[in-house]
């Protein structure tokens, strides 16, 4: 499992196995009510800069690496509408930015500034949303600092609030390096060890 910030994926080139960059990521399309990455909307590169009518479904991604989104060839792209339909998005991921994270005990943890995703290393694996980067509230002690909070498999979300279990605040992390273990420990105490 490999963790990355959703913001870092924006503008990453989409490269075929032949080594051609045929697009770049414009935005992330979330699926499963924001719990997974369903695919990407794309923009052209170089001479073809600007939005494209084609998108990329997560199933067609060979690998999401630190520097590129790898696909087999051009045929991996499909109409953006198809990507959106497949994702049947409940709530877009982009618009969680700025939302307030509340615990089920009614404590404000802070505002979402980024989404943390986990990429499965096995081909055909999911691309899971595992946490948010938040600008911490007073409840977390250090107001204004950036913290990573783990998420359960599914969360309740409205236009203003994202509801997380109260125990989430016991599993915050300061950097991505330690966050994988936090997510694991947090989910283990919610659902039992995997």
């Amino acid at each position, binding site marked *: 499992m490999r963790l990355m910030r959703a913001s870092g994926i924006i503008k990453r080139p989409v490269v*075929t196995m*032949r*080594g*051609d*960059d045929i697009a770049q990521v414009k935005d992330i399309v979330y699926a499963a009510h924001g719990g997974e990455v369903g695919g990407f909307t794309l923009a052209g590169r170089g001479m073809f800069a600007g939005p494209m009518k084609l998108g990329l479904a997560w199933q067609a991604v060979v*690998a999401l*690496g630190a520097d*590129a989104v790898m696909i087999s060839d051009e045929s991996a792209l499909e109409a953006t509408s198809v990507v959106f339909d497949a994702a049947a998005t409940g709530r877009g991921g982009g618009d969680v930015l700025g939302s307030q994270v509340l615990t089920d005990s009614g404590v404000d943890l802070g505002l979402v500034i980024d989404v943390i995703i986990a990429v499965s290393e096995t081909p055909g694996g999911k691309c899971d949303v595992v946490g948010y980067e938040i600008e911490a509230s007073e409840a977390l002690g250090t107001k204004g600092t950036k913290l990573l909070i783990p998420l359960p498999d599914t969360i309740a979300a409205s236009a203003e609030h994202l509801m997380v279990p109260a125990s989430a605040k016991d599993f915050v992390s300061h950097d991505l390096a330690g966050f994988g273990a936090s997510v694991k420990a947090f989910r283990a105490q919610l659902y039992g060890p995997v």
Partner: protein
Amino acid sequence: MRFSEATGRQVVSTATADTVGRVDDFVVDPRRRAVVALSLKRTDGGDTLLWTDIVAFGSDAVTVTSGDKIVDAAPAIVALSGKEHRLIGKRVLTAGGDDIGTVDDIEFDADTGTITSLLLAAGDVAGARLVGVGSYAVVVRPK
């Protein structure tokens, strides 16, 4: 042998002992992981010498039976030529989407034309791992 040391080498006819061209660039077929032709500095006959028409790729000269072997590039060779298909200086991506550096030089087998390794600052990548060479990157399989 390396691309860097082989570039500029003279091409000599075994029939007349004349220098009939000079190596300018290498045309690589990523599918075969091999050099399939040499691009030469422009001569009267053309600018392409197919690997199969080379008698020997020696340490001092490339030999051919005759200058007639230097021809205009066929469409299949043109499709593998040009900046988009050059390996030297291009970024290297793994099939996993990670940037591992830039191709500094290529090591190839002078007998067969097979690419034996890609030389990067971070270390050598076996030629057998080569997957594609495109406008953006050279793609290699993970170890």
